[in-house]
């Protein structure tokens, strides 16, 4: 058995390693944390990172351990990012392939809706949705998912349109294949590369969006830790205790980087024209 293709791609491996580290961290954090992330400790407020106290990343203004909060927050961030992307991708792709495949009036109708959704700046749209739905973790998922719908719709429609006129679609038809069969068997798999790249990008952007929303106080609500609301509360003490801002910031940067690297690598791998080239 030859090596899976993903292991031959350095960029993808780097991204994958970063994401795997986070996943391990999430698993570990679900049954062990250095400290209770929401336990306040007035004797150790704003302590700088040190090995002696066991607070490797220091403590925040309530004396809570920053490392424990980052670990707890990573699962929140990752779950939001994955579910929001899944939500946006499922509905967006459904809209997109429908529009692209049926064409004509349906195409026009669906894509104009997507255009309207596109015309709102994404953060504004998210704030609007959060304001309507109320501030909690699930609504963050819905808000980010809604932002993603038109993006996925546009990308999948474009892919379907460019594939639809291909000769092999006509060949499949001449073989007696029906619309649904052609759509799922021939069109969708071929439109995967751009969609997958979009998914990986969306995962990283979702982390940024979630952090932004939480930073603005609209996302994950304290005391539940999320990277965004950690940054938000660190804002006040950043000058005297920079570690409260630096470490959550680093967490966001590395995970976003990990998804982007994986996405780039995946694009190279998934493009069938690059397959098995020795």
């Amino acid at each position, binding site marked *: 058995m030859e090596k899976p293709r993903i292991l031959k791609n350095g960029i993808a491996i780097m991204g994958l390693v970063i994401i795997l580290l986070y996943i391990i961290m999430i698993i570990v954090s679900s049954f062990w944390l250095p400290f209770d992330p929401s336990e306040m400790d007035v004797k150790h407020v704003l302590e700088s990172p040190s090995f002696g106290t066991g607070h490797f990343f220091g403590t925040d203004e309530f004396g809570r351990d920053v490392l424990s909060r980052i670990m707890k927050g990573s699962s929140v961030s990752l779950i939001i990012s994955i579910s929001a992307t899944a939500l946006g991708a499922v509905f967006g792709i459904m809209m997109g392939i429908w529009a692209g495949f049926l064409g004509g009036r349906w195409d026009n109708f669906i894509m104009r809706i997507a255009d309207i959704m596109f015309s709102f700046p994404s953060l504004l749209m998210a704030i609007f949705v959060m304001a309507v739905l109320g501030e909690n973790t699930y609504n963050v998922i819905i808000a980010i998912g809604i932002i993603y719908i038109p993006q996925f719709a546009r990308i999948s429609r474009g892919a379907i349109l460019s594939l639809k006129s*291909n*000769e*092999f679609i*006509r*060949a*499949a*038809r*001449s*073989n*007696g*294949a*029906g619309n649904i*069969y052609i759509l799922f*068997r*021939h069109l969708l*798999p*071929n439109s*995967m590369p751009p969609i997958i790249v979009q998914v990986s990008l969306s995962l990283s952007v979702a982390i940024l969006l979630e952090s932004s929303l939480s930073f603005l106080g609209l996302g994950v609500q304290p005391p539940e830790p999320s990277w965004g609301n950690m940054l938000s509360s660190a804002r006040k003490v950043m000058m005297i205790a920079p570690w409260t801002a630096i470490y959550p910031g680093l967490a966001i940067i590395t995970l976003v980087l990990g998804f982007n690297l994986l996405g780039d690598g995946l694009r190279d791998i998934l493009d*069938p*024209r690059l*397959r*098995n080239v020795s």
Partner: protein
Amino acid sequence: MGKEIILHVEGLRTEFQTERGIVQAVNNVSFVLHRGETLGIVGESGCGKSVTNFSILKLVQYPPGRITDGTVLYNEKDLLQCSEDEIRTIRGKHIAMIFQDPLTSLNPVIKIWVQIAEALRLHQGMSKKDAKAKAIELLKLIGIPDAEQRADNYPHQFSGGMRQRVMIAMALSCNPDILIADEPTTALDVTIQAQILEIIKNLSQEHKTSVIMITHDLGVVAEMCDAVCVMYAGRIVERATIDELFYDPKHPYTIGLLNSIPRIDQDSEEHLHSILGAPPDLIDLPIGCPFQPRCTHAMEICAYKSPPEFSMGGDESRTVACWLHEKEHAHG
């Protein structure tokens, strides 16, 4: 003749709506195909050869294309009246197609054997294992070495000639009655062309498959076909058996085509003969014979009256649509 008629196309008309007007791509085309026969449809680019055959299987995209008239009788069933579901059971199973460009006719992300087995799985509900075995068998039949290993390849790992063979394997997987080959060799180089034609010929003879061979290459016609229809501007201008076509062409267009073939014994100093002018604009066809503006034998009547198909000697399979041959028709 006593030969069994397998496909009867009668008065087929297909038009395309464009911004400039309606294009009559196929204009009152009729022909019959007998069992085991290879029928060539010849003509220059844009004369409606391909559209005729897409129309047979109702594969013309609507919009802009539309089949406006005609019948296509296959097993006493008019394919043009069939519902989409009905005709899908015919496509691939009873009437299969090979396309012009093997490079784009295979789905790049699906393994070769899966594509060959597509029709089998769609029409016969074959299990995955059986279908794969059958696909490998077909690959061997069309002469792909290491068929077992190659079956798991993707199309880009195959050369153009091999992909065209795969197309043939796909088309023949269900043992169709009729194989429509739409310029199967145009995109290939000459040595591969000969191999591909050989494969089509052998397999069609073996399985008693009737073949409709669409081509603009008279060499291919000479090699493959029993009977020929020459098309010009959406209509059939001459139909003949292969011998009649090459030894006794009647229509000025056919004669022009035959004269345009470079000959190996020809003086190289001499210019190659060509038919003057360009094919007519199918949007506003001349009222008379469509070939009249380019015809060296054009008469007065040609300019205002389109010639019907005159049968020569009362034989329905030997017709010429040209006023020059009106008399022969009358005497016959």
